[in-house]
């Protein structure tokens, strides 16, 4: 592949344009990622700033914020997803035509952020949607969103027509829309955001990585520094781990008592 690209680039210098159908498709996709005009909290302000002239999202072909999910390719989940709003977010995603991408913007959309221990905020939109790119920050700067768009573009570059599901014969599947329960959101009668215990694990992968998470730790050869990705963590189900998180076991969330040092 790399040799092929080198030949292509060399030919392009000579004014001969040769392309593969993959590269041509992906060029079209990456150059016109139209986001859904959809904001939930303060991250949306940064998203608007990104779309305006100073940061100029149009340089990436992503300036066309569509008011209808039917015309959008990208959902930027910009802000705190409350439990009351989560079903609507999933419904909007289901209404988007494929291929569709999700950027989880900011700490709240990614994990619940500062509201994680509250009663009303969803602990990460990835419990219900397959997220392609996560952006840390509270809120992230427009540069961070631009970087996420560029990361998404490089992901789109890696799509293979014969591998990606939506070019095949299988139909788009709707993601289950959560319903309201007595304690929280439910899917098929099962509480999806239980209180306490380990941080929740998303059941979904990025669509480019196969959408369904297997429950195994992916790429075990890589060193993980984030506790939840520790391969000693056993999974109870697709989105719940067994036992108490390592950082709680070592009492890392509280303020450490100052160590008594004898002078």
């Amino acid at each position, binding site marked *: 592949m790399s040799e092929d690209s080198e030949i292509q680039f060399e030919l392009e210098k000579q004014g001969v344009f040769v392309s593969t159908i993959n590269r041509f498709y992906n060029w079209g996709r990456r150059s016109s990622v139209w986001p859904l005009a959809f904001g939930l909290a303060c991250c949306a302000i940064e998203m608007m700033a990104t779309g305006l002239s100073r940061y100029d999202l149009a340089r990436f072909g992503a300036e066309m914020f569509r008011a209808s999910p039917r015309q959008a390719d990208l959902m930027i989940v910009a802000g705190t997803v409350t439990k*009351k709003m989560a079903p609507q977010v999933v419904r909007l995603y289901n209404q988007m035509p494929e291929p569709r991408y999700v950027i989880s913007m900011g700490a709240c959309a990614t994990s619940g952020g500062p509201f994680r221990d509250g*009663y*009303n905020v969803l602990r990460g939109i990835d419990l219900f949607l397959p997220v392609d790119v996560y952006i840390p920050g509270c809120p992230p700067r427009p540069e961070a969103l631009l970087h996420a768009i560029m990361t998404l573009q490089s992901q789109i570059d890696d799509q293979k027509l014969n591998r990606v599901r939506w070019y095949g014969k299988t139909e788009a599947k709707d993601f289950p829309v959560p319903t309201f329960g*007595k304690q929280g959101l439910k899917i098929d009668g099962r509480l999806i955001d239980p209180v306490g*215990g380990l941080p929740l694990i998303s059941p979904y992968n990025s669509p480019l990585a196969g959408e369904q998470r297997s429950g195994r730790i992916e790429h075990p050869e890589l060193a993980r520094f984030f506790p939840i990705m520790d391969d000693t963590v056993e999974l109870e189900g697709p989105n719940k781990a067994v036992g108490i998180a390592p950082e709680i076991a070592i009492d890392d969330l509280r303020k450490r008592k100052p160590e008594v040092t004898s002078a």
Partner: protein
Amino acid sequence: MPSMSAEELKERLTRDLPGALAPARAKAEHVTNGSAAPQTDPPAKPKKGAEGPVDLLATNDAIVLSERIPDVVRYVRDTLGYTFLTDLTAVDYMADGLIELIYRFLHLDGGPTMAIKTRVPRDRAVVPSITPFWPGADLQEREAYDMYGVDFPGHPNLVRVYMWDEFEGFPMRKDFPRQGDKYIEEEDEA
């Protein structure tokens, strides 16, 4: 510019609406002593907890019997002219078994706000609704119901406003279970 102090309001209420003010609490005397002690010697800050537990219920504001709330609110609006209800909110005093409702009014000519309070037991938190004659209280009473479980008989549409209808419990009450990983050990101890 209208300005009515809490003492003035209490005087007016005793004169014009006899029996509306709640009887003074038995602990009140102890409270004045407790609050007077630090005033005499402000630079020497008393150690925390040195003068006994802080009385959270001590207040200067007018405390009204809960069943007289509609009368008092009407009086405040029609006679005193405080026509803007800026706040209707609640506080949960779990240790004392009380829920306190605070009605805060503003005079449209300006001046400081004026508060009246009422206290109801936590297990029977019932306060007559003022929405029938004061529509601006509609959402605020629904919020107090949603978050604190205060019942407002007479309200035309007392349903949850922030949480979904299926939700169980009142999240702003002090005994609503705290959520999250960092409380696991505390719950085990308790």
